[in-house]
């Protein structure tokens, strides 16, 4: 369903695993799906926007979580 929101927990994983998990979660989803990956790996803050650019999706933004992780959100196209 378009506009669906999905969250992927990638806390504790190091690069490139959070991005691999994000890509797996994106597979087969409708355009418009909002996908959030929660990471503790510092590289993900650079790599999620870069992944979105390289794969034609839109990076929405990042937010700190209460647990000290960062939640990075993309919208699939």
């Amino acid at each position, binding site marked *: 369903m378009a506009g669906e929101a999905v969250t992927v927990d990638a806390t504790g994983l190091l*690069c*490139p695993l959070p*991005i691999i998990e994000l890509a797996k979660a994106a597979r087969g989803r409708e355009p418009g799906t909002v996908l959030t990956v929660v990471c503790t790996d*510092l*590289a993900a803050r650079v790599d999620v*926007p870069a992944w979105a650019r390289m794969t034609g999706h839109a990076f929405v933004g990042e937010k700190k979580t209460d647990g000290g992780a960062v939640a990075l959100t993309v919208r699939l196209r």
Partner: protein
Amino acid sequence: MTNRTLEAFHAGLADGWADPSRLHTESRRARQLLDASREAIAEALGARPEHTHLTQSPHAALERVIAGVFTARRGRDRIVASAVERDATLHAAHHVSGGRVTTVAVDARGHVDLDALAAEVEVPDVALAAVQHANHEIGTVQRLARVAEITAAARVPLLVDATASIGHGPSPAHWDALVANPADWGGPAGLGVVALRPQTRWLPAWPEGDDWAPGGVLVPAVLAAAVALQERRELLDATSLRLHGLVARVREAASAWPGVDVVGDPDERLPHVVTFSCLYVDGEALLTRLDREGIAVGSGSACTTSTLEPSRVLAAVGALSHGNVRMGLHPGVTDADIDRLVALMPRVIAELRAEAGAPEVA
């Protein structure tokens, strides 16, 4: 080091072993070798020998020139630096200014934002601006003529870190203070060079007065550095043209590999540096795999650093930081080496992706 550089080093050990600051015959000979070598290096940098100072490392050169120029700018206590300067520059700037450092963003190809730079240096608290000549990670060469126009209009001294570029292309023309690294042009490690314009003011911010290298520099190393630079300059046009072409081949090939991000400016760049990042690939595994194939490369990926932080330069240009490969082609690299690399990489990338359980890349 080449044979000629090694021979110079040996000759320096034979004739320049004495302390050049003393007055006996051997010392005077060492002093002559040191002065002649410094003169040759200064000439190659487009600098005056009397304003060219040797230090014990490129780091020491950056630290001393930042401290010296900053200290002469009394009442101004902020340092402006591009976001892609070396850690050594930013660390020295933070140390000297008590953390009053403003970084200026770069665009996706790594060029400093000139409007943002102009806005920063116009503020009258700026002591110094640091903009590198070329980036050692992604190869992008800054538009220094325009940068220098901006800093000159604001009467702010411009420090240019040329540690990645001297010996690989023309020396930069626009600077008030310049730092160079002899090891990067094929000279020995353990030396740094600072060149200042005659009008660039500085004060010794250290206890040894006007001595930029307390304890002295190794005279044979300075002689070898001068000879290495001379040798590089004789072959510069031919070598840099050839390497520029080889890098263009790697960049072109890599941009056709699926899920590969080629970083930096395709044209305004160092001739010998190429950087790309491979989606879903572990940088450390990639380095190990290439090393087994006899290909030594660097990486800016977080997993290859002790801090697990990705390269600040890759972050600044918005490039993918994982699966990063950084190559500096030395003058001995051949067409056949590049053929082999270009044939090998897609297979290696595909294998590492499969091992990591990564999805297909279109």
